[in-house]
C-alpha cells in the first residue's frame, strides 16, 4: 500500500544492475526509438503499452467520454434508485444501461462510468506527481551520495536507510489529517507519497553511480578538469537512464495503489471529487447487494496496476539489449525469468 517500495524494485537493487557492461554512449546510440521498437516487438509489451496509453487517453479525455455517454460525474439520478430498498440501483448489474454504461452509484444515482474516468485523472495525476517527486529526490540524494566524498556518502546513506525504515503509512495518515483542508488535496497526496517514497530510487542511483564513476571515460573527464556537476550531468546521468526508467515504471503503479489506499481510508481527495479509493470504500458494504459497484473500481485498479507493472518489466528488458538477445537465443517463453544479471553468467 505504501511506496517505500517493497515489491517492484527488489529485482534490481542495490548491486549489479545490468547497466555496468554497457557504456552510456552505446545506450544513447540505441535511443528512444530503438527502445520503443524493441518494446513493440514483444506481444506482451505491446498489450501493456496499448493498455497504458488507452488509460491515459481516457483520463485526459474524461469530459469528452462522459459527454459522449451523456452524463457527468456529479449529477444525482433519484429516478434510477429504489428508495424503498436502501437506495439501491434499479435494474440488474447495478443499473447498467445504454445511458449508464457501468451503472449508477447506490444512494445517489451518480454515473459510475463518469466517476471512473474522472477518478482515473486523480489516480494518474497523483501517481505521476508522486513518482516524479520520488525520482527527483532520489536522483538528487543518490547522485550526491555517489559522487561526493565518503563522509557525505555515509551521512546520506544513513539518511536513506532512515527514510526506508519509516512506517510511511502511519506518517502519511498523520500528515494528511493535520494539513488544513484548504490545501489542494491531489498535490498534498503527491508530496506526501514522494516524501516517503524516494529512498529506493536514491539507493539504486547511488549504487549505479558508484559503478559508473570508476569507468575510464569518467576518469578522463575528471582529468580534463570537468566539474562534478558536469560529470554528473554528462557522464553519469545517461548511464542511469535504464535502471531509473525501469524503476519509475514500476513505482508508478505502486503509487496508484497507495493513493487508492489513502483515499479508501478517507484521507484522499474531498468529496464530491471522484477517486477510485473512495469508490471502493463506499462499495464495501454493498458487495452482497450490488456486486457490480465493487467490481468496477476494483477491476479497473487491478488492470491499471497490471498494465503499468507489465510495461515496467517490458521497459527493463527493452532497455537492456543483452537481455533481449538472451531472450531471443534462449527462446524462453517467460520474460520474467530472464533478467539482465541472471542471463549474464
Amino acid at each position, binding site marked *: 500500500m505504501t511506496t517505500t517500495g517493497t515489491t517492484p524494485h527488489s529485482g534490481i537493487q542495490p548491486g549489479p544492475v545490468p547497466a555496468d557492461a554497457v557504456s552510456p554512449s552505446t545506450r544513447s546510440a540505441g535511443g528512444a526509438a530503438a527502445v520503443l521498437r524493441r518494446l513493440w516487438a514483444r506481444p506482451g509489451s505491446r498489450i501493456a503499452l496499448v493498455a497504458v496509453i488507452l488509460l491515459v487517453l481516457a483520463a485526459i479525455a474524461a469530459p469528452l467520454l462522459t459527454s459522449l455517454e451523456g452524463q457527468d460525474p456529479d*449529477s444525482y439520478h433519484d429516478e434510477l434508485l429504489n428508495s424503498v430498498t436502501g437506495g439501491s440501483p434499479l435494474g440488474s448489474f447495478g443499473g447498467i444501461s445504454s445511458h449508464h454504461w457501468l451503472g449508477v452509484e*447506490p444512494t445517489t444515482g451518480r454515473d459510475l462510468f463518469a466517476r471512473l474516468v474522472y477518478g482515473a485523472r486523480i489516480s494518474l495525476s497523483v501517481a505521476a506527481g508522486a513518482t516524479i517527486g520520488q525520482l527527483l529526490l532520489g536522483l538528487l540524494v543518490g547522485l550526491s551520495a555517489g559522487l561526493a566524498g565518503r563522509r557525505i556518502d555515509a551521512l546520506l546513506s544513513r539518511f536513506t536507510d532512515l527514510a526506508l525504515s519509516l512506517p510511511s503509512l502511519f506518517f502519511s495518515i498523520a500528515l494528511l489529517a493535520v494539513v488544513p483542508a484548504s490545501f489542494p488535496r491531489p498535490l498534498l497526496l503527491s508530496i506526501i507519497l514522494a516524501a516517503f517514497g524516494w529512498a529506493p530510487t536514491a539507493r539504486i542511483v547511488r549504487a549505479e553511480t558508484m559503478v559508473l564513476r570508476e569507468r575510464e571515460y569518467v576518469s578522463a573527464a575528471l582529468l580534463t578538469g570537468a566539474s562534478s556537476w558536469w560529470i554528473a550531468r554528462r557522464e553519469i546521468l545517461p548511464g542511469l537512464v535504464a535502471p531509473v526508467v525501469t524503476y519509475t515504471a514500476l513505482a508508478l503503479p505502486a503509487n496508484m495503489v497507495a493513493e487508492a489506499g489513502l483515499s479508501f481510508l478517507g484521507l484522499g481527495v474531498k468529496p464530491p471529487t471522484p477517486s477510485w479509493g473512495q469508490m471502493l470504500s463506499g462499495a464495501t458494504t454493498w458487495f452482497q447487494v450490488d456486486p457490480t459497484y465493487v467490481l468496477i473500481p476494483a477491476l479497473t485498479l487491478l488492470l491499471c496496476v497490471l498494465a503499468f507493472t507489465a510495461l515496467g518489466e517490458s521497459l527493463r528488458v527493452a532497455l537492456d539489449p543483452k537481455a533481449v538477445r538472451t531472450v531471443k537465443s534462449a527462446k524462453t517463453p517467460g520474460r520474467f525469468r530472464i533478467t539482465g544479471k541472471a542471463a549474464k553468467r
Partner: protein
Amino acid sequence: MLRPARIALLGLPAILVGGLLTACGGNSSTTSTSAASFNAATCQGGTLYVLDQSKESTGYDPAELYTSGGGAIPRLFFRTLTTRQSTSGTAGTKVVPDLATDTGEPSENAAVWTYHLKPGLKFSDGTAITSADIKYGVERSFSSQLAGGPPYLRDWLIGGESYQGPYGSNPDLASITTPDPSTIVFHLRKSEGDFPYLAAETQFAPVPKAKDTGKNYNTDPVSSGPYMISSFTKGQSLDLVRNPNWSRTTDSQRLACPDKIDISLGLSPAVINQRLSASIGNDADAITTDTTLDPATLAKIAGNPSLKKRTISGSFAQTTYLAFNLTKKPFDNQLVREAFAYAVDRTAIVNGEGGSQLATPATTFNPTSLTAAYHPYNYFPAGATGDPAKAKQLLAQAGYPHGLTVSLAYDTSLNAPDATALQQAYAKAGITLQLNGIDDSDFLTDVGNTATQPALTLTSWGADWPSGAPFLTPIFDGREIVKGGGNFNLAQYNSASVNAQIDKINQITDYATAQAQWGDLDAQLGKLALTVPLYTGVDQVLFGSHVKNTYVDQWRGWYDIASVSVK
C-alpha cells in the same frame, strides 16, 4: 444549553438519529407479529442476550448518564420519579409515574413540583427507598467529578448555578426539600411545565448515601429496578440478574420477563446485524439497543420476508436542517433564505441517507413523530426534488441575479451524504456550495461559538424528551444565545415577543395544550425561514427469531428492553 440528541442519547450511537413514521399505524403492524403469542402474565423466564457496539466505558452512574426517558439498559436497574409509558404508538410519548404516585403536583405557575413516593419501595439490598435518597441522587449530579448528565437541573433549580454537589463544604441544595420520607419538593426559578419529563432521567434515581462510592459507583450502582448487576467488565460484558426486592406490584412500566440478561459490549455493527439476521443458537434470543441497519443491509433484507418480519421501524424525534446565521450576509436577507428553502432536493438527500426506509423528508422543524406538537406547514414548497426556477427568481430579487457562492459547514461523520446532495441541488439554482467538512470532534466547538460560527451550517437537533420545549427553546429563544461556546441558536434570532411566548407556554402543565401551542409557535417561526428542515431519520432494527413483544415506543423509536420476552 441543551444538546443535540446525538450526544444526548445514551445507548443510541451517533449514527442512528431518529426520524418518524409516516403513520402511527406502521408502528403497531410491526409489533403485532410477535405480540400474538405473547402473554405478560406468563412471559417470565429464559436469558435475553443483548448485542451492542457501545463499550460503556464510563459505566452506569445515574448522575453521569445522559439518557432520553431513562435510556434502554439503565432503566432496567434505575427507577426514577417518573418514566416513559411503555406502549406502542403515540401513547409512548407520555410520561407516567414510576417511583412517584403521580407525575407531579405543580404549583400555580409550574415553578414548584411536589412528588409522593409509592409505599413499599425497596433497593436491591432490602432497604427502603426514601425521598432523601432521591434528593441525594439529584444532588450528586451537580458534582463536577460526576459531570455528564443533562444541563437542565443546573438551569432550573433555584441555586443550581452555584451548587457544587454533596461532597463539598456546602452539601445541601436548599431548593429540594423532603418534608417526610415519602415526599420531595422541587423549587424552580422559572415555570417549567415539562418538569415531569425531566424527572424520568436517571438523575432522579434514588442513591443510598451510605453506599455511595463517588467515582467508583458507576461499576456497581445499587439497583432500584427489576434487575441488578451481577458482573460488569467495561468494554466487554454486563450481566444482569433479577433484583429479589423488586416486584411488579409497584412497577407498571417494566414487565421484566427474562430471568437473566447477558449484554455483550463493543461488537462491530456488521457483526451485530449478521448475528441477528442469522439468529443461530443464543442469538435467536438476542436484541440490540444501539445498532440500526445500514442502507446495504436494508437492501439485502428487502428481498427476505422472514427477516423483514424481524425488523422494527421506529423514529426518534430529530430533525436534520440547514441553519442560517442571520448576523452574516447574505442570510440577513429573508429572500435569500427562502431561495435556499425552495432549491432543496429532499428526494436526493433522503436517498443519500439510504432511501425512504431510513429517512423521511421534513418541511417542519418539529418532526411528525412529535405527534402532539406537529403542526404541518410548507411555506416554501420545493416539491420532491426542488424548485430551482423559483429560487433563481428570489435570488435575483434579493440582488443576486448571477447566483452566489457560500460555504456550507457540516459534520463529516454525520452529514457528508446530505452535504453533497445539497451541493448538487443548489448548483441548479445558481448557488455554488463550497463544502466545509468539519471533523466530529471539532464541529460543536466551531459551530457553537458565536464568534466563529459559519454563515451556513448543516446540522441536526433532537429533543431530550418528546415535547416542543426542548425542541424549539434552544434553537429559537433569544436568551439561549450563548457567547463563547455551546450555542445552538444558530440563527442568533432574538425576538422579545417569541421569548415571551415561550415563557407563557412553559407555564402550561397540560401536555396536549402545551404541545399544540409549541406546534403553532413552530409554524409561526417557519414563515421566517430561519432554518430549512430537510429530513428526519428512521431506525430499522433487527431482533432474534425467538424474541417476543418487540413493539416500538415512540419516545425513543426503539423496542423496549424492559418489555421483551424470550419465553
